């Protein structure tokens, strides 16, 4: 407030020209300051105690002190909720139902969100959702620090507005020129996206939508279309199958999009004396082959023959004249198929339309109930011919613009160079990409898209089964969805969310609630009873054409690994470190070869001093394409065949550590996973593998994985002593008693309160490894990298041991061991047992901390850092641990993992725990361990405690089967069941007392709380 008030200081001011007033105006001090009095008087000056130097010291000190006080210490910012959002309680997780549809994996999932951060993916069980290892790991890709963080034009950052203007201008140019606009997408199975592309077509005309799957199922789609009229994938209800014959179909892997474990495992558990019989003909040792009751090695070209013979035997009853072992096996399979009739099914992975036609025809002839041709699946739509045509057109300059979404063709195309050339010839090339990958770097405009956890969307995985995708976090970067961009380019002001909601409300939901659908994540439309039309197909020609396919001496079978899939998540350290279920090798792809072929070539696998595996390097050439690859000798690899995994060898948009393996897509000619005419040449040098398991056989230790046959299991008279699940005996007072009954200690009363058990059914477990990643995510398990894995220092709390038999089966191994009499005989037997058979029987066994009630680790810890919980868990107090590693040495199961280094915040371990973004995935309920402490499976104590607390707050007893661990939750196959054995209603209580139940290494007397179930194999050949 300005004021005009004048304050009078003296009457003198009234006198104009007053000398006093003037003087005062000029001088600050009315009187002269008597400095002389002070400075002139030398005596006084000298007498003062403050010297000039002292004065300067004081000045210096105060200046320094003030400066220091003004400095800030390092501030760790944490942002509290000043105003708490209504639906968030800090410390309590929120779950949102959404759907992953990345073009390779499609699943209904629940997303666990803590304080606004999605931290874990779980299957949406209410929607029959299943998760595999990749889906479980996909949450980490959200926090990938190398994501494309905003739109770019020719490598330079640009704003969305500018990008829109430039692209619309160019699109209009293309429209004017009359050239078509190609939209190249991966399979999205999204009704709204499909509608939107149609709308885009309305605006710009002449828009061609080409769908492309990196790993093609085009042959199947074509065959199905020819036979049943729609271009989709049939579904298989494997739980209904009594006989499954698979010819090169890795249906437990990602064959036809995968997701068959649940049904398969249901049929594999012997209930009321019945389980399915699974016969697998294949060249590579696949997960499905490893689970088969009978596995017959057949080169890819021989698989064609197998299918033909099977077709003839089943459909026309013609028996092949030649009695080769393969033909005999086919004959037996055919008989079993015919016997099982409608309860049998034939699956094939041969990427040949004729082969797929024949397989469908066999199933049709069998009248198979397993095959479902009405509720078809939309998770693969790619059309090889369209893609090939597009590339040709691009190179001929017939395409005006290419818009790529949800696909990385520059990396995945076998003729990537032609595609890149073609890109140069189009007026406009746009790639929507989450990663700064090969394609994003080859186009004019790379537009950053959000992760599916930041997106809206919908998916029709199966006909009539609609799923919604909803964001669980605000976009981390300056990204925009592909669909929002299309809307913007078509001039619409609506967001994709509006568009989606409108589409659903008008076309899908009918009168049902959008909110309910969003809450559930899925919506099942009323089943439209449409009779599946069945068209007449000329099967004779198909068979004749298939018979003409020529093999060669050496054939390559390309496959997809459980870990990396098609390679889009190559920058995900969890998946890179995930050991392949079969080879148990991480961080690599390699050429799998049979022992005899390797010997003939002179290629070797050998172990270096610390046990790590090395392999020879070879040069693989097929039709002029060649690559230098390491060789891994694979038991069960058909002679004359080679295996190589797709999805590796990415070079752009990933950290240096993640640039592992070689790109096998270059051999994926004509999108066929079977390539003939391979030649191998030994080149010098050795490759260093990172295997987590170095001993491949069980050494005749049949009590580790107990097995029996269905016959013996069903008929007690065949084995009256019940030898297939004997409890080991020990001598007590010269009498043989069951080992579990002998106790050095007075036992606690464990019947009060909760007592947790985890049951693992070896029959249901397929070894898929979803649990391994779920455990990784839930428990903040560090990633250690290839070098450390090579030093046998993997940190997985849960591992899935894989054993090969030395003989045809494990019973044979036991016999070899028994027959090794005397010192020399024993040595000979043991030496022999170290080598796996050429076509071994395979067994999987998930092993985590067994939570022994008499834990060897607990007694030896000098500081009592590991001790037993009241609820049966063996607990680790990380704060107390001094790291003597005595517990790990004394653990018979070797499940304890030591922090050899500081894994988080260490640039030597540049994985997700070394950057701020990657750390967002960490579970705040589980502590991140420092170096020097021991860690291990806790039986997800944070989850069981949360369940107890929740029930307590809600004032109710715990519900039946309410307790879960990360692994049991992730187990689609239903092999892992967790629960409270003090609750008779819990499933686990019954399982723990099942006649198949046994404890691992029971004779040591550790009394574990993990129960295994004897593996039963269906060996009935007729």
């Amino acid at each position, binding site marked *: 407030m300005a004021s005009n008030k004048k304050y009078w200081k003296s009457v003198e001011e009234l006198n104009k020209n007053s000398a006093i007033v003037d003087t005062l105006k000029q001088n600050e001090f009315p009187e002269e300051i008597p400095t002389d009095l002070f400075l002139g008087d030398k005596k006084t000056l000298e007498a003062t105690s403050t010297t000039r130097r002292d004065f300067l010291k004081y000045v210096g000190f105060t200046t320094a002190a003030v400066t220091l006080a003004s400095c800030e210490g390092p501030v760790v910012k944490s942002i509290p909720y000043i105003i708490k959002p209504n639906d968030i309680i800090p410390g309590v997780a929120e779950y949102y139902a959404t759907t992953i549809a990345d073009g390779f994996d499609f699943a209904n999932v629940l997303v666990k969100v803590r304080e606004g951060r999605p931290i874990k993916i779980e299957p949406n069980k209410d929607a029959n959702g299943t998760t595999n290892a990749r889906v479980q790991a996909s949450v980490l890709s959200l926090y990938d620090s190398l994501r494309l963080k905003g739109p770019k034009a020719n490598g330079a950052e640009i704003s969305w507005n500018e990008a829109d203007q430039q692209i619309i201008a160019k699109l209009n140019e293309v429209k004017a020129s009359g050239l078509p606009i190609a939209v190249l997408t991966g399979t999205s199975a999204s009704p709204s996206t499909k509608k939107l592309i149609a709308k885009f077509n309305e605006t710009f005309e002449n828009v061609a939508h080409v769908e492309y799957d990196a790993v093609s199922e085009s042959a199947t789609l074509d065959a199905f279309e020819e036979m049943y009229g729609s271009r989709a994938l049939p579904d298989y209800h494997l739980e209904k199958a009594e006989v499954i014959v698979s010819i090169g179909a890795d249906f437990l892997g990602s064959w036809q999009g995968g997701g068959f474990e649940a049904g398969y495992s249901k049929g594999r558990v012997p209930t009321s004396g019945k389980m399915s019989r699974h016969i697998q003909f294949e060249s590579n040792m696949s997960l499905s082959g490893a689970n088969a009751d009978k596995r017959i090695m057949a080169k890819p070209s021989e698989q064609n023959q197998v299918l033909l013979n099977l077709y003839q035997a089943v459909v026309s009853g013609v028996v092949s004249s030649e009695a080769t072992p393969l033909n005999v096996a086919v004959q037996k399979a055919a008989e079993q198929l015919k016997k099982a009739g409608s309860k049998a099914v034939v699956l094939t992975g041969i990427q040949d339309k004729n082969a797929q036609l024949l397989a469908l025809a066999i199933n049709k002839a069998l009248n198979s109930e397993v095959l479902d041709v009405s509720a078809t699946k939309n998770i693969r739509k790619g059309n090889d011919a369209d893609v090939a045509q597009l590339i040709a057109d691009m190179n001929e300059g017939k395409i005006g613009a290419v818009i790529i979404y949800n696909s990385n063709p520059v990396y995945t195309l076998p003729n990537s160079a032609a595609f890149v050339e073609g890109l140069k010839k189009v007026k406009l090339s746009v790639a929507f990409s989450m990663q700064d990958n090969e394609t994003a770097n080859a186009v004019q405009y790379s537009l950053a898209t959000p992760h599916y956890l930041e997106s809206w969307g919908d998916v029709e995985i199966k006909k009539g089964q609609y799923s919604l995708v909803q964001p669980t976090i605000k976009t981390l970067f300056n990204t925009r969805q592909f669909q929002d961009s299309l809307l913007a380019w078509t001039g619409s002001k609506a967001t994709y969310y509006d568009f989606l909601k409108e589409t659903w409300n008008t076309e899908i939901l009918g009168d049902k609630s959008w909110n309910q659908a969003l809450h559930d994540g899925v919506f099942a439309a009323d089943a439209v009873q449409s009779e599946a039309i069945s068209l007449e197909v000329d099967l004779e020609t198909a068979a004749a054409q298939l018979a003409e396919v020529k093999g060669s001496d050496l054939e390559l079978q390309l496959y997809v690994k459980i870990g990396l899939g098609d390679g889009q998540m190559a920058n995900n350290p969890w998946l890179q470190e995930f050991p392949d279920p079969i080879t148990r090798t991480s961080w690599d792809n390699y050429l799998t070869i049979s022992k005899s072929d390797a010997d003939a070539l002179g290629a070797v696998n050998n172990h270096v001093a610390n046990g790590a595996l090395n392999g020879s390097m070879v040069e693989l050439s097929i039709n002029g394409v060649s690559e230098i690859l390491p060789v891994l000798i694979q038991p069960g690899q058909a002679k004359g065949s080679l295996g190589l995994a797709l999805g590796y060898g990415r070079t752009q948009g990933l950290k240096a550590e993640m640039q592992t393996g070689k790109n096998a897509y270059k051999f994926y000619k004509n999108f066929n996973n079977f390539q003939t005419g391979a030649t191998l040449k030994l080149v010098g040098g050795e490759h260093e593998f990172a295997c987590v*398991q170095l001993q491949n056989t069980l050494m005749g230790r049949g009590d580790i994985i107990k097995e029996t046959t269905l016959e013996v299991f069903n008929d007690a008279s065949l084995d009256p002593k019940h030898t297939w699940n004997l409890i080991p005996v020990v001598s007590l007072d010269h009498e043989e008693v069951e080992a579990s009954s002998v106790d050095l200690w007075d036992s606690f009363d464990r019947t009060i309160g909760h007592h947790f058990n985890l049951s693992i059914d070896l029959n249901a477990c397929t070894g898929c490894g979803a649990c391994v990643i779920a455990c990784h995510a839930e428990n903040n398990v560090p990633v250690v990298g290839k070098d450390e894995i090579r030093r046998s220092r993997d940190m997985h709390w849960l591992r899935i041991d894989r054993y090969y038999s030395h003989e045809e089966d494990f019973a044979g191994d036991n016999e070899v061991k028994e027959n090794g009499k005397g010192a020399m005989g024993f040595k000979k037997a043991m030496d022999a047992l170290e080598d796996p058979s050429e076509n071994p029987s395979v067994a999987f066994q998930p092993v985590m901390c067994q939570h022994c009630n008499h834990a060897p680790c607990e007694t030896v810890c000098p500081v009592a850092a590991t001790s037993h919980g009241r609820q049966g868990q063996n607990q680790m107090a990380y704060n107390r641990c001094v790291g003597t590693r005595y517990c790990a040495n004394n653990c018979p199961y070797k499940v304890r993992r030591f922090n050899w280094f500081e894994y988080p915040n260490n640039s030597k371990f540049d994985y997700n725990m070394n950057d701020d973004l990657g750390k967002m995935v960490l579970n705040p309920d589980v502590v991140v361990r420092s170096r020097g402490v021991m860690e291990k499976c806790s039986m997800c104590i944070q989850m069981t405690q949360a369940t107890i607390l929740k029930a307590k707050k809600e004032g109710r007893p715990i519900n039946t089967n309410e307790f879960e661990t990360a692994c049991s939750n992730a187990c689609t196959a239903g092999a892992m069941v967790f629960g409270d054995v003090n609750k008779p209603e819990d499933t686990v209580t019954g399982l723990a007392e099942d006649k198949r139940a046994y404890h691992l290494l029971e004779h040591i007397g550790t009394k574990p709380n993990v129960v295994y179930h004897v593996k039963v194999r269906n060996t009935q050949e007729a």
Partner: protein
Amino acid sequence: MSSHYEAPIRRPLIVGDKSYHDISVDVAAPVEGKANKLWWTAFSVALVAFLWGIGCIVYTIGTGIGVWGLNKTVGWAWDITNFVWWVGIGHAGTLISAVLLLFRQKWRMGINRSAEAMTIFSVIQAGLFPVIHMGRVWNAHFVLPLPNQFGTLWTNFNSPLLWDVFAISTYLSVSLVFWWTGLLPDFAMLRDRAIRPFQKKIYGLLSFGWTGRAKDWQRFEEVSLVLAGLATPLVLSVHTIVSFDFATSVIPGWHTTIFPPYFVAGAVFSGFAMVNTLLIIMRKVSNLEAYITKQHIELMNIVIMITGSIVGCAYITELFIAWYSGVEYEQYAFLNRATGPYWWAYLLMMSCNVFSPQFMWFKRLRTSITFSFIISIVVNIGMWFERFVIIVTSLHRDYLPSSWTMFSPTFVDIGIFIGTIGFFFVLFLLYARTFPVIAQAEVKSILKASGEKYKKLRDGNHE
């Protein structure tokens, strides 16, 4: 302790024409004289090795145990091998000074001082490993039952590793007291001979005001006897407890009831070998051949031969019991030990520990100084491998074949081991130049009975 008549057939324990004064002069000579080039060279080498070891330890503590070659399956290797090896070496001292004292073996007098010094120095090396092998050394005090504010947070008295803490610390303290007690009259002798005031002052302090009165001697004798009585059970207990680290576990190859006696025998075996190694050099360098005679070395060789044979029996018993048990895991553990990937270590262990001491049956060999020296080195190598074999070959292939792997040391593993050898020799070389290396007061007590000159005077006609 007094000198009595000794039979003429017993060979003299002090050779040559030595008087009481000669003994004083001889023992004091290394202390009073100047170090020669050889000493300085040896000391420099040891010091460099020691510093290198310190560097490796600092690197380990700064970076993590991961710099060693260990892995998820083999959680202990060189660390605990070295620990047991050094503890084993530390056994001879107490055995010689305490047990032989109780058994009135006079020949211990020439060697007990150095043997005990060796014990203390090697126990120091041994004690280092359980500390640095911890992942979080900075929390090492957690293993001590210290009162704390956490209520019931206490150490786990069930853990053999905790028993180790007590066993080793007790052993170190008792050995140190015993050693020092014996040193008192000898320090006093050095004090009395010292010319330089500083030296006089130091030895005066070290000798705790020893005056040499009859009362001093009486108390000295009594304390020695009491401490010998206390130390004797320790000789057995320390390595028994160390063996419990393995014996109480559930790992095939570790879980063995034979371990306590087998470990004690092995410890004595390796301890005597180390005493032989050190004294054969020392008697030469410090001109003590008159006091550490061939007779001493021969007697030690006999102990080596006997304990080596006990160890050999234990090895064979283990193999037999593994077979006899009928337990396949047990059988495989031993089959793998002998013929698995670490067969060479087993072979080294067998040949060094079981076969090489058998040469000592031959008098010519056991009285040969050079041969004794070679065997003593061989035995020490063998005993290191014994511990390596027990620890690594049992762990690397235990129950579940999926976890089987191999161990191979890194430069840090090797560096720390070499460092402890350096540290040991640094201490021992300093000791050799500043301490009375022979218990001269005790040796003087047997001069009349066992001195060559006096024996000759007495039994002259026999020669």
